[in-house]
């Protein structure tokens, strides 16, 4: 299922952990989707002196985090900003198609961590992004409701989506 590079990074992940008093922290993902990633940066002279990650997720998500930290370490911030999810996946010799959407979040987390560092430097305070995603009711009373996962029409009192089997009650 996974390339040998992915398996190598999954089995021997590089740069796992947290950095105390990190200069920048970036968090992406939520448990609803399946994967969560946190990137910690230590910056010196506008370059990434040290980088660590914590990840909750599948083999691909862990390998992505590990590869990303290897790619970013030692780079200037300008260089690091050029790292994309695509280039991380390419460095891993590809990821299974269904993992590209949810597990390939490493570069997003890195960019958020860099932004966090730059915000702090500039004195900007941004609200922390929420991790939990909720199904928002955007339709009128009595209107049609659709499953947030597979988009099939469901009714107000459906406990689960007959399309994908997903529970709806908690989100509804």
């Amino acid at each position, binding site marked *: 299922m996974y390339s040998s590079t992915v*398996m190598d990074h*999954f*089995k021997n*992940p590089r740069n*796992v952990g947290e950095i105390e008093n990190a200069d920048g922290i970036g*968090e992406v993902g939520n*448990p*609803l*989707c*399946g*994967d*969560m*990633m*946190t990137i910690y940066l230590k910056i010196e002279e506008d370059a990434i002196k040290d980088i660590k*990650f*914590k*990840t*909750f*997720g*599948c*083999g*691909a*998500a*862990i390998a992505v985090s590990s590869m990303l930290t290897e790619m970013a370490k030692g780079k200037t911030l300008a260089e690091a900003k050029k790292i994309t999810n695509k280039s991380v996946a390419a460095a891993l010799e590809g990821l299974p198609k*269904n*993992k590209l*959407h*949810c*597990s390939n979040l490493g570069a997003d987390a890195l960019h958020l961590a860099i932004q966090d560092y730059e915000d702090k430097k500039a004195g900007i305070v941004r609200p922390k992004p929420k991790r939990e995603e909720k199904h928002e009711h955007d339709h009128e009373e009595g209107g049609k409701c659709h499953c947030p*996962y597979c988009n*099939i029409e469901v009714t107000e009192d*459906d*406990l*689960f989506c*007959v*399309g*994908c*089997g*997903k*529970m709806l*009650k*908690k989100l509804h």
Partner: protein
Amino acid sequence: MKPINLDYLSANPLLPEVQEAMIAAIRANLGNPSSPHQVGDQAAETLEKARESMARLINSPSPQEIIFTSGGTESINQAIKGVALANTKKGKHIITSNIEHNAVLRTIRRLRMMDFKVTSVSVDENGRVNPADIAKAITEETILVTVMHSNNEIGTLQPIEEIARITREQKIPFHCDAVTSVGVVPVDVQRLGVDLLSFSANQFYGPSGVGGLYIRSGTSLWPLLDGGVQENNKRAGTENLIGIIGLGVAAESAVREMESRNHHCLRLKKKLIQGLKNHIEDIFINGHPELSLPNLVSVSIRYIEGEGIVLMLDEEKILVSTRSACAAGALQASHVLLAINRDFADAQGTLVITFGKETTEADIDRFLLVLKNVVQTLRAMSPLYKK
């Protein structure tokens, strides 16, 4: 090192006697049971012998009430679509539970596209359906109730007899998906009182690709497959005789060995659950503590994700299954785990451990030891783990 198989649910190993019977059948060049000549007659005799063995396993009053299919999925599709299509003039309402297998859920989805209405009854935190909820959901339009015998993710057994009492009183056909129960725990169609019951050979050490459906005589349903008059005119197509022979032999040995297999499995299950509780903090054992399959343990390991656990165990040659969204391919948390109130993150870290007659206590010991290390490694990586 020999691999440790704790993923019996995916496919049971074939019993040696099943292998031998199937190989002999391949070598014998069996004919077509529908042919009128002697070779055909002999094939038909072999077919009926397997049907009799299967009838004994589920205590079907007549072997003719059993049809063979390509497995659990076909049986379930046949039962639900067959009853639905045969009864459209009476109504278009179906009742089910919210922890059914996808073979049931997606079959019902298809029918919903044809204007069938569905009521899905919730389960309690142990995964049990309350029969009173089924009774309450019945309307004049109800033409089918379908509830599984045991759940394939958490092992919980359902009160099928009680539900059948309600459906019989109301004269509504009742289908029971018993795929994970038949050949594992006692399933007696007469005692249960169901009208239709699905089963699959690969859950009781028989081959994959063959299963069947019990159809109480007098139950009206449309065939899924039209063509020849095979299987009592209910399932067209030349029978998969070699597979059915394997199923028959597996059914015979299930009748013989069920008690001793379950005695063995229950001992392993108890040891496994105790070991999980002793070795790993912050876990949930899912499913009913007593009314549950003897060969299945579902455990949610908090703060980590299941696919990672499976891959790391695989490196140590230990096979288990997970219900994490990532591994499922569908990228959705298990509807069964959400139905019993696990949250999304905990559902992600859920393993389904299934075992059988060849599993030893030493296998369980090694699994627990390796799992403990794997959990430690993954938790050290997890942003959710704050210890």
